[in-house]
């Protein structure tokens, strides 16, 4: 039997121990630096926009329509258009995408057809948005005769965001532990009951996050909307889904492309409004998600 000399903790660090400790510290710093790059870029952008735009950010900006005179111009039509489009896009794309995700995860037979569909959805998520604009122009505006309406825009944006929402929802559904499904099936629940009472509630926070991210991208889209007929100068707020419309990014773009400095400030103020809209959306998502998580 061999004697063991007692060694206090922390006194016998080998070269290997030192190396892995050092590596750990370096890794943490590297990740921190990477985070900083993103945050720094965001801060610079924000400060720049705030300096230019804050002086112009007032109630008048929100209540006025576009105008040739910068001091009288506002984002009213564009903000209303963006919100209309956002809500309508969410209403169209969310149920369809979630249903598609449920089908693909829970019902679809695991054959080659499903694989082909799956691959196509992944590919669609990577198609440039302008291509969706062309499709929207041909399909919704022309073939279906929906004209240059909010509905055409929302349908086009729905096509754009659906692949992303479907994939995020599938991911969230897949993350529900199989033991939960087993437990529910084992108690004599039908597939529909397992999905609606157990799987969906558990997947909901993830689905919500994916949806909000996708919709945030949609709110910032310009190119496909120009194709389906959003115009830079609209002097009324839409009353229905068949009305003409403009959106914030387009309004901002049309102001930035003017030579006068006043319009550049106006554009900066418009960007702040757009950012606030995005922040509100994300806050709503976080609240909804926390509420869903708290119900466990």
């Amino acid at each position, binding site marked *: 039997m061999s004697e063991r000399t007692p060694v206090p903790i922390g006194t016998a660090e080998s070269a290997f121990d030192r190396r892995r400790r050092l590596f750990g510290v370096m890794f943490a710093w590297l990740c921190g630096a990477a985070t900083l790059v993103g945050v720094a870029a965001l801060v610079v952008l924000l400060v720049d926009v705030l300096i230019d735009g804050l002086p112009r950010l007032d109630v008048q900006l929100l209540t006025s329509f576009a105008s040739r005179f910068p001091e009288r111009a506002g984002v009213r039509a564009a903000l209303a258009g963006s919100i209309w489009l956002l809500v309508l896009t969410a209403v169209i794309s969310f149920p369809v995408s979630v249903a598609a995700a449920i089908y693909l995860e829970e019902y679809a037979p695991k054959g080659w057809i499903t694989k082909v569909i799956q691959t196509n959805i992944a590919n669609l998520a990577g198609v440039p948005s302008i291509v969706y604009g062309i499709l929207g122009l041909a399909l919704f505006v022309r073939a279906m005769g929906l004209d240059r309406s909010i509905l055409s825009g929302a349908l086009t944006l729905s096509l754009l965001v659906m692949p992303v929402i479907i994939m995020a929802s599938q991911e969230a559904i897949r993350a529900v532990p199989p033991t939960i*499904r087993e*437990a529910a099936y*084992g*108690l*004599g*629940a039908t597939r529909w009951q397992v999905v609606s009472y*157990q799987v969906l509630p558990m997947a909901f926070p993830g689905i919500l996050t994916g949806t909000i991210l996708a919709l945030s991208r949609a709110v910032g889209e310009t190119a496909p909307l120009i194709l389906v007929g959003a115009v830079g100068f609209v002097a009324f707020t839409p009353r229905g889904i068949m009305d003409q419309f403009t959106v914030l990014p387009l309004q901002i773009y049309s102001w930035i492309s003017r030579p006068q400095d006043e319009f550049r400030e106006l554009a900066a103020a418009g960007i702040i409004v757009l950012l606030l809209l995005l922040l509100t959306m994300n806050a709503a998502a976080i609240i909804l998600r926390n509420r869903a998580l708290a119900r466990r």
Partner: protein
Amino acid sequence: MATVYGIDLGGRGPALQARGLSVYYGEKHAVQNVDLEIPANQVVALIGPSGCGKSTLLRCFNRMNDLVKTARVDGTVDFHGQNLYASGIDPVEVRRRIGMVFQKPNPFPKSIYDNVAFGPRMNGLDGDLDATVEESLRRAALWDEVSDRLDDSAYALSGGQQQRLCIARTLAVKPEIVLMDEPASALDPIATQRIEELIYELKRDYTIVIVTHNMQQAARISDYTAFLYMGQLIEYGPTETIFTNPREKRTEDYVTGRFG
């Protein structure tokens, strides 16, 4: 007259009867051509070394293997004279009438109450739900510990409490047969004893098939014991015979702990 291995069952007949049962996971032949009769209102223990196919066999009895994409089941399991694997049999009804407690506790991320109430609700049995929940929790020896916090999350319970919750949840559906996969492996001796008493009591109304690694437990609670080894049913008979006078050398080695 129905008999199992020469033992008179008093005309009760088998609750489950497996014939030529085989399960494949892809190429792997996990359960091989098993014939097994589960007498009604008795406790049958499945024993055998880890990986020998006990869970797989148990899951055949309520068609849980349907949920495993790679699994394929051959052979028949008769329940009230009907083959559970015949076409036209709805696995949902099978699972309602033949309940299961899983090897690892798997409560839903919901309140304690909702966990127990889930089965009755899904099956439209919610007559007096409160009473059903209380009775089920009492039978699973959990009521005293949770009666004042039924609205707490089931995840806040300890592992052993979660397992008893899962037992209560299964009982709440009032199945005819209860399949238990090592229900006591995460429990302390006191809770284990309560579960064993519960099993003894349940016998009056239910048929029970239980997987266990604990030889003393199998000897204490079961009327019949089946010894499985590498996917094959080596020996099956009255528990006393299996433990005191088995026919097979391998059975004797296993139950006496000389297996190796």
